[in-house]
């Protein structure tokens, strides 16, 4: 078991490194001059040259990459162009907000999607209401849904505060937006795996034991559907980190998604690559945790290939 984890961590490190390379190339190739976004349009060419010199922007790309990689390996993600502070501290400052949002959205997803899937699995007839809601959510872009919720529950009937900040009350609307987006996927997975579980013979054994319906579902069925659901959670982390970009922009939630788009617009390369690395590391660790969780819940998973 420990060997398997070690292999996974090694592979994870490789993935993060590959992501660093990919992101560095991506943002290096994006047209635009970071010096201009630092010094502003009225700066004279001499000032721009001076800034480019200080930030070593005119070095050949491979020396920039080499310099960057060596500093990353020592854990120093460089300093942000736009506000002169170490990228790592900037990200760590904003990370808890995004983590809280992702966690809350995951809870909303699991609860909504789970209950919905279970309800549909336990009812013999397929309900058309849920199918239409399913389609509606699948096709609604995040920002339209977010803005509608903001307008409805933040402004028209001011149930939730819309004055920005990162308190629990402000967390509700963004978490619901993200959660709603993901719940159809969870509902489908829960419904299918539950339906398969309910028609398998170990449930018949449970029925023949005379167990109550609730006990059968909670004791026997839920643990069996945990494995496919945890796989989905693993895949979902990456989705969160991109859905978060829109939601944080609309609800002014101070997370790394917002910082990422700002860094991209300002061509703040160290901050941009920094956020991507942290995001990639989050995805990799999340997948590892999910795998461990899954093999804890479902012994069959433990025997599968890593």
């Amino acid at each position, binding site marked *: 078991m420990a060997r398997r984890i070690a292999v996974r961590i090694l592979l994870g490190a490789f993935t993060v490194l590959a992501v660093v390379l990919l992101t560095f190339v991506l943002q290096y190739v994006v047209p635009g001059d970071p010096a201009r976004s630092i010094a502003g349009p009225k700066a004279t060419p001499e000032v721009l040259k001076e800034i480019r010199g200080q930030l070593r922007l005119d070095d050949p790309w491979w020396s920039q990459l080499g310099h960057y990689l060596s500093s990353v390996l020592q854990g120093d993600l460089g300093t942000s162009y736009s*506000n002169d502070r170490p990228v790592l501290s900037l990200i760590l*400052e904003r990370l808890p907000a995004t983590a809280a949002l992702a966690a809350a959205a995951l809870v909303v997803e699991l609860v909504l999607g789970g209950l919905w899937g279970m309800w549909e699995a336990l009812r013999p007839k397929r309900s058309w209401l849920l199918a239409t809601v399913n389609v509606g959510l699948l096709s609604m872009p995040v920002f339209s849904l977010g803005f509608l919720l903001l307008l409805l529950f933040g402004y028209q009937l001011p149930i939730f505060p*819309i004055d*920005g900040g990162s308190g629990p009350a402000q967390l509700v609307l963004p978490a619901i937006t993200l959660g709603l987006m993901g719940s159809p996927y969870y509902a489908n997975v829960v419904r299918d795996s539950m339906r398969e579980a309910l028609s398998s013979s170990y449930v018949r054994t449970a029925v023949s034991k005379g167990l109550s319906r609730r006990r059968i579902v909670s004791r026997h069925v839920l643990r069996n559907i945990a494995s496919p659901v945890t796989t989905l959670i693993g895949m979902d982390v990456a989705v969160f980190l991109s859905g978060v970009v829109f939601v944080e*922009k609309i609800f*002014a939630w*101070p997370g790394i998604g917002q910082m990422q788009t*700002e860094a991209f617009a300002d061509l703040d390369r160290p901050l941009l690559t920094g956020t991507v690395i942290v995001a990639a590391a989050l995805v990799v660790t999340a997948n590892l945790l999910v795998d461990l969780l899954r093999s804890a819940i479902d012994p069959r998973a433990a025997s599968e290939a890593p």
Partner: protein
Amino acid sequence: MAGPPPLPSRRHLLTFGAAGAAAAFLSGCGGPGSPPRPGALAHVGAWAPGPGDQSGARRGGHIITAWSNEAQSYDPAIGWDLHSWEAISTVLHAPLYQYAGPADGPAPHAAAAMPKVSADRRTYTVPLRRGVRFHNGRRVTAQDYVWTWTRVLDPELASWASSYLLGIEGATEVYEKKAKKVRGLEALDDHTLRIRLSEPDILFQALLCQPYMAALPKEEVERLGAGFSRTPVGTGPFRITRYDSKRQRALFRPHDHYFWRGTPLIDTLEYRWGIDYPLQALQLSGGKVDVLGEGLVPSQAARFTADPEMRERFVHPVPVRGSQWITTNHKRPVLKDPRVRQALSWAVDREQLTRVSFGLSDPWGCAFPKHLDRYRRTARPYTHDPDRARALLKEAGVGRLRLRFLHGTQDPWPLMAQVLQQQFASVGVEITLDAMSESAFELATSKGEGDLYGTDMYIVLDSALELVTTCFTSDAAQNYTGYHNKRVDALTAKARKAPTVEASNAILAEVEKELTEDAAGIYIGSLNFLAARSPDLRNYQMRGETGSYYDRLWVKR
């Protein structure tokens, strides 16, 4: 409002391409133009120079201003986006002079009186006001100004404003690391500062009003180091007490030793950023926020124009000294012929075009902004005359004309480009639109690519001379399209050396006439600024050169 909403970074917003400074504008409404009368509150002494009428002033209150982005820096030598500019101009630092009433020129602020100018108009002697202290309590001396201005010239700091100080004797040597001290800059005693220019410059008086010319405490700059850009120490009406980048908020409290006794009136000022425009509009109309720092962007401006009641309660329209035009690439042979440029100028229907910016620019066919003080215009603006355009094109012998129009994602240009495309098509000129990200757009235009692109330019130094020297003279910093007009260059140099503002403006009128007739650019609009503030604020004043004046407003909840 059509056109993809602007990318999150609004740093570029009101810089609109060329004008690094904030939206420069005259406070159109409110109080009489005369210098501030003593307020009803006895204990409020004289007010800092600026617009507004303080009768019925009341103390106390907490003001919240919303911004879309974090400030570039609160260090006056570094910050240039609107958020930083307002903080360094009226909140944290007090420059030597500040624009007085709505239409008047600079009035003494941190300085005791207007500068004594030598006969050859090259030496300025500035008497400093006594009793001006830094937030840490230390008195300000002339030596502080010498140190601050030398710091701006320091190549290590790479401040964007360094180029403005090169007019002072010896400044270029410091800028090129050849000298440590600026020859033309001397502190005669603790309260007099003498500046010697290499040649007379009518703009220098306005330069003394800029935030980067305000004194900075040497010991604090060195103590705080990089932190200075977030929690600076200055001489302004407010000092910063908390900078929280995690919750994206900054808190300012009144400066206890502020030399205009009794102001500011409110207790605390809070800046909040990271708030997108639609949410800003909701927060304002929901009463959660008192001022929108960047005013109304076109997409939100439409929201308020749609509802007259909302417009009346929240919107504070303010004319701005800024002009909007389409730069033509003079390197392209077909665009070298002035008749082609004039044809394009006649082909534009400015009425239809500026409707797309929802009140943020008025249709206008001349080079300089519509409202200029102490200026008598002689140029005749272009109007919409497609037949004349077609005639000019035939006269210039141009058949099918295909031009590439570049634009970034910044409102309202993506939309205007589409309207222009249709208007030019009606005179036989085919425009292809080339949309790109904002940073790619700036890089492309600075390299002189593309044929046409939109430009907005605001005047901060109180004279149209700034517009010409930045965009239209041959050696202008932002003249990327190779426009050379000897007559314009000569007149501009003369205007700069003119003895008085009126004389300088008379010469500038000729420059505008030349630029307009030569159609150096296709002039389409004169810019406005729609400030957005809560109806509870009293005596809310705003000027483009500085942003909102928080030292004179009060709250009546």
